[in-house]
C-alpha cells in the first residue's frame, strides 16, 4: 500500500525503506528542489556519495536505470522513473547557515544541512557528516563565460522521480528553503514522498 508523506516547506523528512522497496518523490508544486540523501540503515557511516556516483555512472547525473552508489561504491538506490525533464544536480553542496550569512541573512535561516541533521534526529539517528546531496529538480547549469547559473526548475506540478532501495536504507529529503536565489522560484514549497 502506498503511503504519502509530506516534506514540509523549508523542512526535512527521514524515512526508513526496505531493500527492494520503491519510493516516489513528487514535485507537488513543480518549482521545488528536493535535496536527497540515503544512508545504509545498518551502518550510518555508509551513505550515497555524489563524488562516488559520478565515477560509477561516468557522468554528471544519472539516467533511468542507473544505480547511485555509496562511499563504499555499493548501489544504494536505483533511478527507475522520471516524469520531469530529467534536470537534477550532483555538484552543489547543501545550503547551510554560512551560505545564507554570505547572501546577507542577518538571522537564522532554515537550511538543508540543518534539515538533514534534524530529520535524522527525529528518526533517532545522528548524521555522521553532511554528504553532498543529490539535488532533485535543481537546475544549475554551467554557462561558458557566465559560470554556474542558478535557474528556476524546469519541472511541472506533480512531476516525480521513482527510486528503488538496493539495501535497507534511511532516505532523507529537504524541501530546500533557498529564497535568496531563484532556484525555488523565490517561494519554497512543500513536496511529497510516496513509499510503495
Amino acid at each position, binding site marked *: 500500500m502506498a503511503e504519502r508523506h509530506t516534506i514540509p516547506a523549508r523542512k526535512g523528512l527521514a524515512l526508513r525503506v526496505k531493500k527492494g522497496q520503491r519510493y516516489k518523490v513528487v514535485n507537488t508544486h513543480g518549482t521545488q528542489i528536493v535535496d536527497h540523501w540515503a544512508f545504509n540503515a545498518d551502518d550510518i557511516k555508509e551513505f550515497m556519495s555524489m563524488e562516488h556516483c559520478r*565515477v560509477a555512472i561516468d557522468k554528471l547525473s544519472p539516467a533511468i536505470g542507473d544505480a547511485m552508489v555509496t562511499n563504499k561504491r555499493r548501489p544504494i538506490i536505483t533511478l527507475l522513473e522520471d516524469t520531469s525533464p530529467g534536470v537534477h544536480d550532483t555538484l552543489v553542496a547543501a545550503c547551510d547557515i*554560512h551560505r545564507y550569512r554570505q547572501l546577507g541573512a542577518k538571522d537564522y535561516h532554515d537550511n538543508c544541512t540543518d534539515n538533514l541533521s534534524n530529520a535524522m534526529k527525529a528518526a533517532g539517528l545522528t548524521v555522521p557528516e553532511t554528504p553532498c546531496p543529490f539535488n532533485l529538480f535543481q537546475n544549475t547549469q554551467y554557462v561558458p563565460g557566465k559560470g*554556474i547559473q542558478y535557474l528556476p526548475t524546469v519541472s511541472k506540478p506533480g512531476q516525480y522521480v521513482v527510486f528503488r532501495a538496493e539495501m535497507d536504507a534511511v532516505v532523507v529529503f529537504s524541501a530546500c528553503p533557498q529564497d535568496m536565489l531563484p532556484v525555488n522560484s523565490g517561494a519554497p514549497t512543500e513536496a511529497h514522498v510516496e513509499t510503495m
Partner: protein
Amino acid sequence: MAKGKLIEIPARQGKAAFVKKGQKIKVINTHGTQVVDTWAFNADDLREFMSMEHVRVWIGRYRAKKGDALITNKRRPILKWIEDSSPGVHDTMMAACDRYRYQLLGCKTYHRNCNDNLWEAMIEAGYHISETPSPLNLWQNTPVESAGKIGQYPTVSKKGDYVLFRAEMDLVMAFSACPQDIMPINSKSPKSAHFMVA
C-alpha cells in the same frame, strides 16, 4: 617564494604537513604524468576542511584554477591558488580512489589507494580525521564531455610543472600520489611528486 625543504610524496603513497597561515605551498608534478590528490584541513578543527562541493559554488565553476580562493565546508577561504605553470587541467568532481574502487576494477588483493593514503599520512603527521572529503585532484584530466559524460585521460602537464597555494589559515595539507594504474589517468605508471612549504 622563499626556499623550503623539498618533501617527497613517494609513488603510490601519501604525505601530510602542517602549514602556518600566510605560508606558501608549492606542489610539483616532478614527472609530469602524475595526479596528486590534495586535501586541506583547518589545523584547529579537523572537521572543517576544503570541500569541493562548496568550492564549486564559491567559484561558480566546476574546475578550480589560479586566482581562486578554495573554501571549506564552513565556506571560509582555506587556500588561495596563486600560480599554476601547467595548462590548468585539474578535477573537483571525482572521489578519491579506495579499496572498493580497485575491487570493482578486478583487483583480488589489496591495492594502495588515495583514501588510505590520506588517513595514513594524517596519522603519520599526528592528526586524526573523521571523514574523507572529496579531494582536489591536481592534474587529473577527467573533463565533462558531451551529454555530461566524464572522460578519463592522461595528464596534460609537463615534467616539473607546479602549482602554488597560500594558506589562509593554519592548516594541515595532505597529498596522495595517486596509485591508479588500471585507468589511464597516471599514464598507467604511478610516480612520485614533491612539495615544499615556505
